[in-house]
């Protein structure tokens, strides 16, 4: 779910007119590559049927050069101080109470949320997805109105097996390459989840989504609001992506 963090800082280089889907995707990837270090504060508001609302708050650090990230929970109280650290192939969960690191599987959920370790991996969209073509061999891309914006709507399917969803539909603004909506499907064609990118902020002349609504289309009524603030793309200190850093925080 937090994959979208990988897609923040999306602006610009896409040509006008009916574009190729690949170029739209690689436009994303190019931008994505330009960003190496990110720091942000993330708020997750999860609403589940019959279970009320759960709020999670965390500090998020990422460095793409060696596929590292660090998450430090700052709320709620029960989760405060816990963290997740990934350096290269290693992924640990840190428990503040026991002051222990536990090596975890990538599919472990974070802070008991539906966000999974996998979501934090930065992978290039063009490596994962290819455009869907109709019977005539044309890419499935069309123009639509989404709210007050006119958008490109296009479908992609997974090129590789290890992606969360085998099929996706994207809605991207025509005037600027800004992703507004994203729908994910299962192999059987069932709509599983929809992402709405609601508000954006400008960082380094690029529009970055800072409020995203994630709707669980499978279990109706479950939704998550993801809010990002305090974004910084300054180079991060090497000390951050270490176990010691996590431990020191809870001292």
């Amino acid at each position, binding site marked *: 779910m937090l994959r979208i963090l990988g897609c923040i800082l999306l602006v610009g280089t896409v040509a006008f007119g009916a574009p190729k889907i690949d170029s739209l995707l690689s436009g994303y990837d190019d931008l994505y590559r330009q960003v190496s270090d990110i720091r942000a504060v993330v708020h997750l508001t999860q609403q589940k*049927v019959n279970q009320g609302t759960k709020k999670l708050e965390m500090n998020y650090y990422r460095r793409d050069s060696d596929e590292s990230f660090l998450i430090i929970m700052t709320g709620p109280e029960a989760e405060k101080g816990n963290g997740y650290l990934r350096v290269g*192939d*290693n992924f640990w969960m840190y428990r503040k109470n026991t002051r222990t690191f536990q*090596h*975890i*599987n*990538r*599919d472990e959920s974070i802070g008991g949320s539906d966000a999974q370790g*996998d979501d934090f991996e930065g992978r290039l969209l063009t490596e994962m997805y290819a455009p869907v073509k109709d019977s005539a061999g044309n890419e499935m891309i069309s123009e639509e109105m989404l709210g007050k914006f006119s958008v490109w709507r296009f479908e992609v399917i*997974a090129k590789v*097996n*290890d*992606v*969360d*969803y*085998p099929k996706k539909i994207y809605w991207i603004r025509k005037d600027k390459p800004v992703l507004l909506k994203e729908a*994910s499907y*299962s*192999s*059987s064609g*069932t709509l*599983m989840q929809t992402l709405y990118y609601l508000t954006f902020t400008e960082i380094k002349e690029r529009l970055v989504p800072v409020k995203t609504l994630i709707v669980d289309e*499978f*279990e109706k009524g479950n939704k998550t609001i993801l809010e990002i603030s305090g974004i910084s793309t300054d180079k991060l200190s090497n000390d951050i992506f270490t176990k010691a850093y996590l431990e020191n925080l809870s001292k």
Partner: protein
Amino acid sequence: MNFLFTISIRNLFRQRRRSILLGSAIAIGTAVLVLANAFAHGISEVLFNEIVSYVSGHVSVSFTKGGNANNQVFHDGARIREIINKRVPNVKRVDEAIGVFARAIGNAKADNVILVGMDPSGDGVDEKEAEKLAKNFKELEGHFADLADTTVENPVCLAQEKAKTLNVKLHDVVRVRFTDIRGQTQAARLTIVCIMKPSNVFMAAPVYLHIKTVKRLLGYSSNDVPQLYLSIENPRKDAKRFADSLHAGLNPPLAVIDGQLSVHGSGVEVTLLSLRTDSASLALVDSAMKFSARTAADSVNPKKAVIISESLSKITGLQPDDTCTISYEGKFGDEPGGARLIVTAIAAAGSGIDGQVVLVNERDFYKTFYDVWPKSTVAVNGPFRPDTEIGIYKAFGGEWLLAPRSRTTRDVMKLYREIAQKGWKAIVVDVGSMYETASMVLNLEYALNMITAACVMVLFFIILIGVVNTLRMTIRERTREIGTIRAIGMQCVDVRNSFLIETGLLALISALSGTALAFVTMFGLSQLTFKTDANPLGMLLVDGHIFFAPTVLAVCFFIMLIVGIAVVTAYFPARHAAKLSAAEALRHFE
């Protein structure tokens, strides 16, 4: 000797009250012992034959692909089955075991469920097994056999309670969301064809689909097998041995892909070998190989290494950073396998890999290998076969990775942590016996045996105190009698023996009546019906009844044990009595 028995029996009847008192104590003790043992054994039977064989198999073979515990697949299932048949004689059943967590949505109600695959009509499901199934899954509505109905969309059977929580009825549809073996989120519609009442709570949690249905939903292809559970005839005796033997049979051959390498339209036959990229193997690469050319990235991150031999470089003109493609024939289906490789290094001649060979980092190698299982194997001739003596040989990967046999549950857990951590790219094959995988169940059996042992101890003290006291009274009372028979000419040992016989007989009769009592009690208790759904221990019941499994051997052993304890306990007082001086004894008046 005969008349000693006669006298002993008559003496027992003479002191009727005392005999009955001690005898009842021994009898009740025996009854408790036999009962406890039959109960413990009954539970063990249920555990071993029902629960263990369903939960972990007596022997299990597990596959973990890509370090992902959810990715339980092996692509050449027939091969594994062949090895099993060869290595595990008289295997009763080989069950494909799949259990996957899913979110299920019924009629406006959602719940977490486990999708479990089963095959109610598979091989090895004999009449007895079918009977057991019918007993364990009592059909309330619909038919269990309809799981195999192909005209229905994903037929499923679930427990009454589950149907209630999901608010669904027969023929309703339950939607489920789950992660398939590739890690993709998937959804499916399951049609309820059977609502049943399971014999224990244990079986009420999952929803049951035909194994074929689950495999399809989870993305298994027809050659793929999931985890395999083997049920064998005599698990306690053979599980470990068979697991060891199966393990020995599962040693992987070297993985090779023989195919066509093409560069700029021209092709050449090559063999691809997997280059393991764990630190030990990488160190071996550094020490055992010399490179005539190498990209900067390869020295920094050899995890993406694609190394070709110098001769291959000459033939093809391939240099580091050049791209080539490989295509090869698959073992299953018509689809050829293929890969696009970027050369990172050229091995200098004399490294042991002179020839038409490409060493491919394990990540890329196994991705290709498992995507389309190659037809060629190391056993047949190919463009290149490495000499097993060369220094680098140990860094070549096999068709899979055989995990060492774990000896304890701790080892098993450690292994799986390691699998997850190391992210081994080869499928890790692990053979386990119930002694490692179901140790919790075995611990329960151990606890029950401890209860039996405690019974033995209590019984031992009853006998010890009872026999010693009774004998002391008896000897005091009969001192003059002892003097008389000694005077008449009975040998000391015979006097001692007569007391031993007397005690032994009492113990034997008591133990026998105790056993009879135990059997009557067992019969009575097994007539009771317990409500299983509410009770977490319900899984230990058979059809709501306590299941006792007394064995002739155990009962005989206990009877002998009790008689033995009694006789040993009686030995010293009896000898003391026999050693009394005849003259002294005769002078004794009470």
